[in-house]
């Protein structure tokens, strides 16, 4: 059987670290240190997004995380019942596009979450059906 985990947390930002670390631990047999950092970051950013934007920062709703590690990839599903986000939200603009200007004022302080999810994962997809949203993050194992 493939190693997997399923966790359900309250929509509380305080709980996100626990899940991100659990998914990291699940992957520790297949991924190197840099890829583990990326998985932990991508998962944390994705759940933060659900809680901050989907549930408007309110506690009392649930977020479910299912992760499966197989021979060539880890697939992480994040499920919530918040209002769905538009598919265009997946297309992260580059928050650092003006970094070369050298102007400190141009540096972003927020809006980096989706860009980081895209940078840390190999595939990101989103679907919404019958009131349940599913964000699927896939990270390929290097061979």
């Amino acid at each position, binding site marked *: 059987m493939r190693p997997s985990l399923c966790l359900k947390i309250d929509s509380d930002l305080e709980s996100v670290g626990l899940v991100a670390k659990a998914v990291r631990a699940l992957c520790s047999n297949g991924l190197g240190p840099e890829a583990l950092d990326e998985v932990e970051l991508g998962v944390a950013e994705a759940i933060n997004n659900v809680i901050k934007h989907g549930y408007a920062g309110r506690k009392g709703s649930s977020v479910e995380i299912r992760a499966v590690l197989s021979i060539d990839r880890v697939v992480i599903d994040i499920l919530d019942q918040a209002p769905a986000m538009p598919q265009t939200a997946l297309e992260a603009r580059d928050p650092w596009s003006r970094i070369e200007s050298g102007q*400190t004022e141009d540096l972003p*302080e927020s809006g980096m979450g989706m860009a*980081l999810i895209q940078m840390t994962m190999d595939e990101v997809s989103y679907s919404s059906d019958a009131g349940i949203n599913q964000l699927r993050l896939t990270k390929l194992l290097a061979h």
Partner: protein
Amino acid sequence: MLSTETIDEVLIIRVEERRLDASKAPAFKDDVGQIIDEKANRLVLDLTLVEFIDSSGLGVIVSVLKRLGPSGNLAIAGANSTVRRLFSLTRMDRIFKLYDSPQAAVEAMQT
């Protein structure tokens, strides 16, 4: 959450959290803002105890840089490999100077 110390007129702010993430960012921003308003413009953020930072935590660090203004000097010290990875992914390693220890950062600021 934070402790401070001054070495050679450089203020060291030590972050006493393992995770500087979205759940901690608002309080971190308030606390560090108060310290900056009261004190010097040469500052080292000591991340030795920090194991993980997300984009919210990074956003606060950027806001500190902005708040210091053009005359300010902000260095990052003690970032572990996970935190350094975030800085390189977001290209913030081009904006911030990263040092292995607060002492190394203070020494660099004297020259």
